[in-house]
């Protein structure tokens, strides 16, 4: 192949994804031509796009876009401005992505098609809703054949949801370690005994894990059930398959997580801000973002909590990626996104102390936070004291990373006299002699021009608008 397939798309031989001029394209290989044409003319594509389940695409085969050998078609799918991964989703985001996958499976079956994979990485969030991005995931349904992606669905969706709901919501992060979903044997051993008496989890997780163990070597031995099954076909009817899909939907829906109060869950009710100064901070953030005379396609709100200021930034930006370390805050942020506008906010879980790494084959299948982090502006409100004091990160390193990622920065300095900082220092020695407004401005001036700086009336905090000194950043 003469052009580089993106490292995330090597698994499926039907085609691959590549990038040219900052746009993502998908090549469909000759071997998949018949399936693709049938899929496009079956009406399924139109129904899925019409329902908002699948990204639309444009056929650009006739254009002069480069292509690899064995090319049948080149399509340009709708642009998704920020690619996020399942381990960055809140509980409800993963649940909604699971339901979307099952809804697509149901519609596909009605049209004589079936999903040939059920990877959570095939789902992204657009306008506040999950959307399927892999146009090549559909193949003709053959009556009698069980669902090839049943195991993958359980590993990518049901197992993490059950672990998050019934053990600890933080276990969603196991998906970082297991790129093809949480092994069912692991999920089975971690889930509490009570789940053995839950029919859905007993069958789809515990029994499923046991079956995998029992038949682990089945492929290699000639006398195994697999081979005898081939000789004695006992087929799974379409009704049976649809009922299994319904049963999975019921299993997914019955996983419920009630967000408890956590450190930041009640943040906006418990800050240093009086109502008046919160309004003042809102006004300043709005004002600073209005002052930026360049288009803001993607803005990262880091330490976004429940996304209060992301929604102000959303007035000025194409998309605000609203990230926080706290699963409760991200969950609330997402629930709010589902129920009310604006929709151009993407709540995600992100731990800046140890951001999402690059994972997969050669560490290049899924990009790290830093690789994906380039944006037009960063919003860092009530954040710097956590990075500098809780995590001991030198101010110059914070400034350096922000300057690498964004041209513009709206950042709030929180002094030691602020009760939030005092709280952080209460139980430890103050080893931060340079953590003051002067030290902050000096550290950031090495990377940024300070364009505006104002005290937030009614508080001791200072808000800045800065522009990166780097000229090679185009955002």
């Amino acid at each position: 192949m003469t052009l580089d397939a993106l490292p995330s798309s090597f698994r499926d031989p039907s085609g691959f994804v590549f990038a040219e001029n900052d746009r993502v394209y998908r090549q469909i290989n000759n071997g998949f031509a018949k399936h693709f044409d049938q899929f496009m003319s079956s009406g399924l594509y139109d129904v899925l796009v019409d329902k908002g389940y699948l990204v639309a695409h444009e056929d650009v085969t006739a254009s002069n876009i480069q292509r690899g050998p064995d090319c049948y078609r080149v399509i340009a799918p709708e642009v998704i401005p920020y690619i996020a991964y399942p381990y960055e989703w809140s509980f409800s985001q993963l649940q909604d992505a699971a339901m979307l996958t099952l809804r697509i499976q149901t519609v596909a079956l009605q049209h004589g098609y079936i999903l040939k994979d059920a990877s959570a990485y095939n789902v992204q969030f657009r306008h506040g809703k999950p959307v399927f991005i892999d146009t090549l995931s559909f193949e003709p349904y053959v009556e009698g054949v069980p669902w090839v992606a049943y195991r993958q669905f359980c590993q990518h969706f049901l197992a993490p949801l059950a672990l998050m709901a019934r053990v600890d919501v933080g276990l969603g992060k196991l998906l970082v370690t297991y790129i093809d979903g949480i092994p069912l044997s692991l999920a089975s051993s971690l889930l509490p005994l009570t789940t053995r008496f839950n029919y859905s989890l007993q069958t789809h997780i515990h029994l499923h894990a046991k079956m995998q163990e029992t038949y682990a070597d089945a492929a290699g031995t000639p006398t195994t059930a697999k081979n005898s099954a081939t000789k004695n076909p006992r087929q799974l009817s379409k009704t049976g398959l649809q009922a299994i899909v319904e049963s999975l939907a019921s299993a997914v829906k019955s996983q419920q997580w009630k967000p408890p109060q956590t450190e930041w869950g009640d943040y906006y009710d418990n800050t240093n801000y009086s109502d008046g100064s919160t309004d003042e901070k809102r006004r300043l953030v709005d004002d600073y973002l209005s002052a930026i005379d360049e288009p803001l396609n993607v803005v990262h709100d880091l330490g976004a909590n429940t996304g209060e200021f992301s929604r102000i930034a959303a007035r000025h930006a194409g998309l605000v990626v609203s990230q926080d370390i706290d699963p409760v805050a991200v969950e609330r942020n997402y629930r709010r996104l589902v129920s009310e506008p604006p929709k151009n906010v993407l709540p995600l879980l992100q731990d800046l102390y140890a951001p999402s790494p690059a994972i997969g084959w050669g560490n290049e299948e899924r990009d790290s936070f830093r690789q994906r982090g380039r944006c037009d502006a960063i919003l860092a409100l009530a954040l710097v004291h956590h990075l500098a004091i809780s995590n001991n990160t030198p101010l110059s390193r914070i400034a350096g990373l922000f300057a690498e990622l964004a041209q513009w920065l709206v950042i709030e300095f929180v002094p030691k006299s602020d009760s939030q900082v005092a709280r952080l220092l209460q139980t430890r020695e103050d080893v931060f002699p340079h953590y003051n407004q002067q030290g902050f401005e000096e550290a950031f001036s090495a990377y940024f021009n300070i364009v505006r700086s104002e005290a937030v009336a009614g508080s001791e905090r200072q808000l800045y608008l800065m522009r990166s000194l780097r000229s090679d950043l185009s955002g």
Partner: protein
Amino acid sequence: MYQIIITSVLIVFSPQTFAYLDPGTGSMILQGLIAGIAVAGFTIKTYWYRILSFFGKAKQTSLLEEEEEGSPKKEDEQ
């Protein structure tokens, strides 16, 4: 015990040209095992909702039917 059940209910696994995943033999067989109960469960649920709907307490039969646009997400219960 599972083995006894399993050997009595065998499912065909026909690899398809573009099914690039390994479906796992155990996973394929399990689907055949649970399909009967799943069909029975879904049938009962369908009739139950028909009864509810008869008494004016209509509910969607399938969880996979689309939810109404803009329907509020379940709220925090704290």
